[in-house]
């Protein structure tokens, strides 16, 4: 089972740790944000990097989830403190 050399599974990227140029850990890749290109396909534009190994964000980073106040506040507080968005092109895989 040899995948083509230029394909990769999203599962391999998600969860991977990210370091800045000086080697300091910025967190793990929690999700990948895509944008629609003119030809209709989705291109990966940036990555959500979260400090805590949070895994699933329960969906509270979107606006459509209004949730019970308590859970929403809890989730957004955690996300705001520890999230950075990094353009995908700035990531180098190693």
């Amino acid at each position, binding site marked *: 089972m040899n995948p083509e050399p230029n394909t990769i599974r999203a599962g391999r990227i998600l969860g991977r740790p990210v370091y800045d140029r000086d080697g300091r850990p910025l967190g793990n890749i929690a999700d990948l944000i895509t944008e629609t290109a003119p030809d209709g396909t989705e291109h990966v534009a940036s990555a959500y990097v979260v400090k805590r190994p949070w*895994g*699933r964000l*329960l*969906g509270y980073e*979107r606006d*459509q*989830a*209004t*949730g*019970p*106040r*308590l*859970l929403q506040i809890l989730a957004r507080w955690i996300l705001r403190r520890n999230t950075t968005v990094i353009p995908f092109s700035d990531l180098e895989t190693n």
Partner: protein
Amino acid sequence: MKRFFAIALGVLTAIGGFVDIGDIVANGEAGARFGITHAWVLLVGVFGICAYAEMSGRVSAVSGRPVFDLVRERLGPRVALANLTGSLLVTVLTLGAELGGVGLALQLATSVNYLLWVPVVAFVLWAALWRAKFSVLENVFGLTGLVLIVFVIAFFRLHADTGGLWHQATHPGPPHGEDWGTYWFFAVALFASALTPYEVFFFSSGAVEERWTSRDLITSRVNVFVGFPLGGLLAFAIMLTSATVFHPLSTSVDSLSQVALPAALALGKLGLAAAILGFFAATFGAAMETGLSAGYTVAQYFGWNWGKLRRPREAARFHTVVLVSILVGVAVLLTTIDPIQLTEYTLVFSAVALPLTYLPILVVANDRDYLGDRVNGRLANALGLIYLIIVLIAAVAAIPLMIITRMGGG
């Protein structure tokens, strides 16, 4: 009459949840040992399951998707797999216990040992799940289970000390001979029995089997607000009659025949026959519910085709899981473990599985992508949050209580 049958799903789910073999004996035993000082626990449980079943029914009706589908989406595959494994274990063990319970009910009626009935019952169960229409199963077992109303009637014929009973209900706490440890152990067990995970999964999958849409929201709510309180009432009636007959004598209850005794005392042979019929329908209904739930949850985790509304050829993996679950249930029983003891263990473990079950339901019920403008209002969210906290406390307390009180033996 047709309207009456429309609530069959809610009634069946509630019966399988509130008066399965474990609950029948737990309520009987609680009544005998503690009087009705646990009445408030059943009330709290009814409110909780009504809140969450309403949310699940709404999510399934509006989005067309069963609730367990969404557990994997929201919690991620790893956590959802833990959830699946835990609830599958509880569900299959409960299925085994229910098969034993049906056997015990038949033993009461025929004096043939329950273990001999088990393979027969298992086969009939599998055949019913394979071929009988979902609506027929709902109607027959849901409505026959309501025969347990005989315990309500029996109570009124028993000349109970209503003043003393009212005092018990309004003063929660262990009576003489019991301590707070065993009191809380029974409280947690009775609460967990009201909110077992498979109830919600079954109800929401049933909603999809019935092809409910947004126009059926009222039907869904009627199912919930009539069915579950009715189930709670039946459980309470068993606790009540047991408290009336056994508590003053300081005897304890640990067998199905003892639970039926108050009905026999009050209404003679007819009462006993009604009680046995009710036990049979309720435990068989619970066996159906747990058997189907096992299939539903596995299929919905992996995204397989599922449901009785499809031809078995097209849902082969689903039907295989149901078949294997029934076989495992039979195997467990053939180790001659006491079915009633088995349910008591599974009740404790299901208490532990509750928080992970209910958290994603609460989250999804607020998501506009799924429900549009039918998301939770403030009341639903308030109830949802309160019960999430209660369920968390119960989950944390369950196993320590079980160990400290040695399964409530004290």
